[in-house]
């Protein structure tokens, strides 16, 4: 019986590459979404809510709930469950609506 999803699907992924998550280096596989790369790295949350500042990550997994919003390469409000990662991507935890840098 398979011990991992990759084993089950007979995966032979292309070469892994590095991304950073809040400045920390994390390995990712080609084709993975931001969310999948983070789950694979054991990271479940990458946003804090606007009101209570509570942690959030993937919920619906299909782009409908917007819980997994994240800042990728400086662009806020990307849906981590849909956006594919690329080599060198800078992923940052999104605080609130992710427009903190606009505050005066």
């Amino acid at each position: 019986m398979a011990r991992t999803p990759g084993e089950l699907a007979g995966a032979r992924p292309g070469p892994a590459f590095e991304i950073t998550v809040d400045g920390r280096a994390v390995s990712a596989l080609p084709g993975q979404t931001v969310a999948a790369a983070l789950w694979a790295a054991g990271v479940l949350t990458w946003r804090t809510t606007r009101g209570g500042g509570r942690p959030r990550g993937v919920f619906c997994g299909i782009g409908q709930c917007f819980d997994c919003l994240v800042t990728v390469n400086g662009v806020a409000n990307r849906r981590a469950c849909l956006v594919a990662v690329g080599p060198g991507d800078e992923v940052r935890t999104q605080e609130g609506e992710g427009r903190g840098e606009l505050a005066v």
Partner: protein
Amino acid sequence: MVTGVFDLVVVGAGPAGLAGAGTAGELGLRVALLDMAEHVGGQFYRQPAAGLGAARPEALHHDWDAFVALRKRLAAGRVEHLGRHHVWAVERGADGDWAVHAVVGDDGGDGRPVRVRARAVLLAAGAYERQLPFPGWTLPGVVGAGGAQAMLKGGLVLPGKRVVVAGSGPLLLAVASSLASAGAEVPAVIEASGYLGYARHPRALAVNPRKLAEGLTHGAALLRHRIALRTRSAVTEAHGSERVEAVTVSRLDARWRPVPGSGRRIACDALAVGHGLVPGIELGTTLGCGTRTTADNTLALHLGSGQETSVRGVWGAGEVGGVAGAQLACIEGELAARSIAARLGRDPGPEGRVRQLSSRRTRLRTFAEAMAATHAPGPGWTGWLCDDTEVCRCEEVTAGRVREAVADQGARDARTVKLFTRAGMGWCQGRMCGAAVSCLAGDGQPPAQRRPLAVPLTLGALAGQGPEDASEPSQSQT
């Protein structure tokens, strides 16, 4: 390159859209098939990204052969597949044709507006999961059952090592068996209804032996993976600080009220939860398509014998007409394509084929209604909410605040609750909290499915869609 006016635009490349587009292509129609994902398949046939090099994608799926056949038919006909297209509206054009508006990119974030024109539209947008909140459901590690399945199929990842699967509906069994096959420990499947409910619909079972066989397959998978199945029970609380560490499972009475004192804890590091599916019909309701209420209190598009909606020129197939599964979706997609071909003056193919498909459709719809009735949420579920349980995840509106709007401010329906509390006003536009807010408002109505913009849109994308291209006979983009 997309040019000119298509005969047909199909929105959604799941089983219904694939069958519709493939059949229409075979019948000689020029078809554009739009879907938000890069590859065809929809949620049901979601595949690992190409870069993951999965040699056995079929190991993650039921009925993969059917998908291979659908893909083949697509390649044979005149179908232009436009992946990563997020349709935000369908609009009636001046000449009686249709303009389908989309933004492009993984999450539509490329901001490039696209307009595809066609003489007919087939809505096959599928469904998303219905969620009922409970204390702790916003904890990291609590994910949609369908969401866990999607992340597994598409990214080959799991939410945790020990995953409880809970909620209601046949999807739970498929999710539990997938997660276990992929190496997760699944201590239990918690089903709020019972399977005995199907026995109240003997005719639906008798004419659908394949559905019984599917049930047995799932049952065997649960046994093989030593997964306990608890019916008439629900996860009434998720515990943990940084992430979910355990769930409390309580017995439910026939109305889904939790039985006091029946709670038992199950340790886990993830929970996959969902209470059935909700048809994604907003593109249709915005056009004024009529709806019907399903046996489990969702709105579905009202469809005629040829799958046409109440708006002439707009058809629907699959889950948009009421959640019924991939097998029926394929039948309806094909029926819609034949009806569209006939309307456009083409040969719709042999009459016998349509009769055969129609009778299969009736049979499977009967089963779907029995399934919906069996797993329909009982009104007592609100008994497991605490006042500080968040109901609207986007706007962080608690059950207490919603109850206050109802009890003290006189809100009698979901819309008024929304105006008082902002529940349903956030990013997801009430997709996650809609069912809960309707129940708490006590209006007895299924949640409204009106979203004039079906996906988020930047003002830039809207501004980039000048009125002049509406009259252009050919609209191109690479």
